[in-house]
């Protein structure tokens, strides 16, 4: 079970009225390498991974939901006051036709989220390498998002989220080292 804290993991402030950026941010909401895919990928894999790294997948999977909330907040702030005309101008006309201003799990191109974005091979090394790749792809996505806005407040939150991908990637790499079970040969121990 989870305990919910009614606050964001990191503050989200959006200072520029830019509904087009909301469309791009959707890539991290309902995209293949987005936060929803990340959370569901890790929280599903943890049942069939060695005990030593179950807690890591639980922790990171949970944090991904906290990131999902931050992305949702950004998208909501950027679209909640947009008129239908503004939504159309931002390339969100087809979204508006189906959802009004409601959020939905699609990528930046409007393609709905699908479980085929995530994997669970059951092989611990294969799954952890998948997770490392997912973190690097999410880091890259954040870089391209940072490149596409000049809103320094939005950039600030995106930079925080990008750094978390870096930390998660290292933790998954460490999980691989733990499962290799050869740490007694490393100089640190």
């Amino acid at each position, binding site marked *: 079970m989870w305990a919910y804290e009614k606050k964001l993991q*990191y503050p989200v402030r959006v200072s520029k009225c830019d509904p087009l950026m909301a469309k791009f941010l959707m890539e991290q909401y309902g995209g293949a390498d987005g936060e929803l895919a990340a959370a569901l990928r890790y929280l599903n894999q943890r049942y069939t991974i060695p005990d030593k790294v179950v807690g890591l997948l639980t922790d990171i999977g949970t944090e991904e939901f906290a990131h999902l909330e931050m992305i949702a907040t950004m998208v909501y702030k950027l679209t909640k006051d947009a008129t239908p005309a503004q939504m159309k101008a931002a390339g969100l006309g087809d979204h508006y036709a189906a959802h009004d201003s409601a959020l939905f799990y699609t990528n930046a191109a409007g393609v709905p989220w699908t479980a085929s974005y995530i994997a669970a091979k059951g092989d611990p090394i294969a799954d952890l390498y998948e997770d490392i790749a997912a973190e690097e792809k999410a880091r*890259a996505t954040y870089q391209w998002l940072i490149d596409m806005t*000049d*809103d320094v407040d939005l950039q600030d939150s995106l930079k*925080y989220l*990008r750094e*978390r991908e*870096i*930390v998660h990637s290292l933790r998954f790499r460490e999980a691989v080292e733990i499962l290799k079970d050869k740490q007694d040969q490393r100089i640190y121990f």
Partner: protein
Amino acid sequence: MSASDQFRTYRPFLGPFDPCPPIQEKSYNVPPQLFISFQPPNLPQFSPYEALKYGTLWPALYGPYPDPSRKEAGGD
């Protein structure tokens, strides 16, 4: 690894008949986790405020973006 050593550059081939003005140099990111296979204990830590701001407790894991050594970087 310092925060200013996390980007690599290369110069792509430029054709004589390229339709658009060429980008002479391209860069890509090589963040710090690539160089740490297992985090050693007792690394120096940021202050709590800095750690929140940067998203990590350890300067060794901090990866800035865009490349801080590039002045023009920082959005369009």
